[in-house]
């Protein structure tokens, strides 16, 4: 393959991009959020296909709606959700840890210090 589809798919079109929101950073976050929303819809549609196929094989929507995980599976799922949230909200964890170190030096500051004779 002589071209890189992954890189080229998201290429910028010719013509300066307009930004509409007062803070362009908010618009960037919005763009990322909508891309994630898109991927969630893609996943939801795929899951729906799986459920419909299962239905044709005898597992009905009711079976899915009424499924109650046994204790061990419920715990596995709970652990997955904990891990998931910890990943997504990592920034708050780190902000909170930093609260207890108000005088912590940055790498830049440490660097200056280490560069001194």
């Amino acid at each position: 393959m002589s071209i890189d589809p992954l890189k080229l798919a998201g290429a910028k079109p010719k013509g300066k991009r307009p930004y509409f929101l007062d803070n362009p950073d908010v618009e960037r976050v919005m763009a990322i959020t909508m891309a994630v929303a898109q991927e969630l819809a893609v996943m939801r549609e795929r899951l729906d296909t799986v459920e419909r196929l299962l239905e044709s094989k005898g597992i009905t929507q009711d079976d899915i709606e009424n499924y109650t995980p046994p204790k061990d599976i419920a715990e596995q799922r709970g652990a997955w959700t904990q891990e998931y949230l910890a990943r997504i909200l990592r920034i708050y964890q780190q902000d909170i840890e930093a609260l207890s170190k108000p005088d912590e030096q940055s790498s830049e500051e440490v660097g200056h210090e280490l560069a001194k004779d």
Partner: protein
Amino acid sequence: MTQNYDGPPDYRNVGLHGMSPETTHDEKARFNFLAHLNRHLAANVLPGVRTAYETRVEPNNPKPNHRHQVRKALLKDPLFQHWSALRRGTMELRQQAGRWVTLRQAEELRDKAEEMTKDDPRLILDPTLELPNYLSKIDHHCMPGSYHDELIEGDVSGAANYDVGIFVTTGGGLGRFSDGGGHGVVKWMKENRPDFKPKRILDIGGGLGQNVVPVAQAYPDAEVICVDTGAPVLRYGLARAKSMGVENITFVQANGEDLSMYDDGSFDMIQSIMFLHETSVKAMPKIMAESHRLLAPGGIVMHVEQPQYAPEMPLYEQAIRDWDAFYNNEPFWTKMHELDLDQWMVDAGFDREHLVHGGVMAVVDATLFPEAAKDDVEDFGRKAAWHIVGGQKPVIATRQAA
């Protein structure tokens, strides 16, 4: 409850032809989501922009006398800002989604097109053709590479991306083969010129031919020429048309401003569909003059576009219709829509009494696709409903000025 479902159809209903790229489950789902997102923005957010305009923008900017004043006032309103950011972002997502589909199989698509068009006299390319500035300066509708860039030799991926993505932008409003405009023109012709039997038809700026294929099918005995400046769309267009069993179209790489390779009066039907707004003030008179020169006595020229900004069109509507000009890389859209096209047609040589006007709605398979005529959601500038500005040449030439 889906009884009153009025959303876009599933992408899997889109018609497949011999050049259709393969799409995975996730890629189809992505197109579905984006079609819905566009529809949602038009149906549920844009009406709110109007309310915001009426309740908090207009009262502070009373009596605007031009659409640009309205647009500049809207630019400061948070809801317009968010709707705009979402609409722009959706177009960028659509381009990325379509390019991902088509670039990952660029070589396969190229090979397929090559196989289907090799040594075919109906593909006439001119590698020396210079790209006009209205195409080289900006990528229309945020489509990287536009209609002309080639990433590999013999590339057709840009054309394939354009083809798969029209569904997304119009929420399926252009029908199975994104050809509702072409079918609309055919319907108009059959209703208004039932006995017309064109022998030679020209489509200017016809791209990959999606709107000329229905015309070629409606007039199977006619010789049809589709001209465009982009080699990728022409290669793809011929392969696509042939795979649909349409054999009477020749795809020619040329600039509509100079079609001197064709004789005076050598076409009896000439159309441009959603094309003039992608040209310029300098190019349009040349295109119109060429279409007048090329038209045979008894023939008809039709330019099909979104409605012009007539004085009776509210300035708010004009400002929203202008959105694509400023924020979706359609730079000439705004100027084109304020021009007196009738006068331009007269200046090109048509008699005013022989001008043609009409309305065209996309004709689609209504069992699956939304019909513009029955849809009260107005995505200004993108609804599949257009105006014809055209002209005829009388069979007996009018008296020449002494």
